């Protein structure tokens, strides 16, 4: 019934983008969810927007410039306070470089 068919490949790809690990059951559910949601948002296609500029900000946003002056310390200790794992003065993560 749905005009949108989300394939296994698409769900796989979106899972990679989203950095989420879904099992087969969750993948099936995500497919159904997404198909329903896309069907719903298709409503927007009733509107002709060919001459409309997309609007990201409500108000005109300008660059704000200031002098690059240090006003705080490096906050190293505070920054590491919530680290799940730390070593010396850094966040500890699994090895990322082979060799």
């Amino acid at each position, binding site marked *: 019934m749905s005009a949108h068919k989300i394939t296994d490949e698409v769900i796989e790809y979106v899972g990679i983008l989203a950095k*989420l690990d879904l099992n087969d059951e969750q993948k099936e559910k995500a497919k159904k969810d997404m198909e329903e949601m896309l069907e719903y948002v298709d409503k*927007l296609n009733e509107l002709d*927007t060919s001459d409309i500029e997309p609007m990201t900000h409500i*108000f005109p946003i300008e660059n704000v410039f200031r002098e690059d002056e240090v006003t705080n310390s490096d906050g190293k200790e505070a920054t590491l306070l*919530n680290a*799940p794992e730390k070593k010396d003065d850094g966040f500890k993560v699994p090895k*990322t470089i082979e060799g």
Partner: protein
Amino acid sequence: MSIKNKTAVEISKMIKDRQISAVEVLEQTIQQIKEKDEKVKGFITVDEDEARKQAQIIQKGIEKGELTGPLAGVPIAIKDNIDTKGIKTTCASKILYNFVPTFDATAVKNLKEAGAIIVGKTNMDEFAMGSTSETSAFATTRNPWDLTKVPGGSSGGTCAVVASGQVSCGLGSDTGGSIRQPSSYCGVTGIKPTYGTVSRYGLIAYGSSLDQIGPVARNVADCATILETISSYDRFDSTSMKRDKYDFTSALDKDVKGMRIGIPKEYLEKGIDDEVKEAVLKAAQIMKDKGAKVEEFSLDLVDYAIPAYYIIACAEASSNLARFDGVKYGYRSKEYEGLHEMYKKSRSEGFGDEVKRRIMLGSFVLSSGYYDAYYLKALKVKRLIKEAYDKAFEKYDLILGPVAPTTAPTIGESLKDPLKMYLSDIYTISVNLAGLPAISLPCALDKNKMPIGVQFIANCFEENKMIAAGQTLEKELAENFVLDFSLV
């Protein structure tokens, strides 16, 4: 002296007049929380020790005459997506189950400087994604008016602890109605300010272009007072607006004589409960009686707001929530091989279903091949919605409407069908897309004695008009409509 049923402004005045001390106020508040929150489950964290320490300091400041503002000594609850230095801030998510911020959000900093006392952090939908507070990883908050009903969401915890008289006021955040809709369900008053008015620094982001922090309280005067305190230009928020004035309380003395108020007829046509519609018409009649000119008009594009919102909000969420990867803070999976699996497993185990659903949808609409068809399309519709409001505000000072189509639903009903749950935000969501301010306040009770709210929407930077209208409505209702905040 008891602070039972007192508003924030009344409490600070009692302290100033030496009828009670800030320390005693806090003890009574903690007592109320202990008695009531077991049933309501509105708080995720209550920090008694830190609050007691603060109350001592604040009391001294008041005695010395250093703290003279209208929130000095007032205990306040903060939604758990707003950073509080030294107090756990979880976004009601397992992925931030142990996160303790090392700084205060600017809104919290402003409150502290005014002498308000942070008593605790309130429950919410996980990462503010939801309309019932049921997607919280930690607890299901209950509506004080009927414990089998939801308090609304996503700021359901803040609204429920105010409605049950545990505290006089609190902060929420509103991305698509998350302050106004639970305020309506719980019979309290809430304001969503103009985008950029309250700094988002320290508000853990959901949809950055839509999010605003705002007050929740028992009446309009408290909301205006809190808004005045938390609003500020902030260089730590790149979308913060430098406003000419941050005065919202002077509007409390203004009337609505001569004001032009429009009611979108689309809001009253379909899908709305008869009793909610009656409440809106009752509010309209009161405004007319007080000298406003009220009429129905056609607001374009009402049906397009929810689909546009979900595309934009989910797209921003998928980007904002990329930072939760198990490296810098929060939950890290116990078993993994390599960095990528650590990211994936930490996120998959840490996020709940609704959050994952929205991250997936957001990643999809931003992905190449779909970006133009969905994300860009939604941004174009956003412009059309903004223009529809611009047109309406050429004719009207304020827009009056319902907050939600119904009163609070029963716990467990809404999550079965997400699309149906999203519909409960139909009257609130377009306000966020257009960056407008709006106030929600209680106007009636339905046949089951559940509160019904109405909202006034103003043009950008015109909070004072809606505060004046809200105050007028509240005053007129007061004679026959006194809400009970000690139901639990």
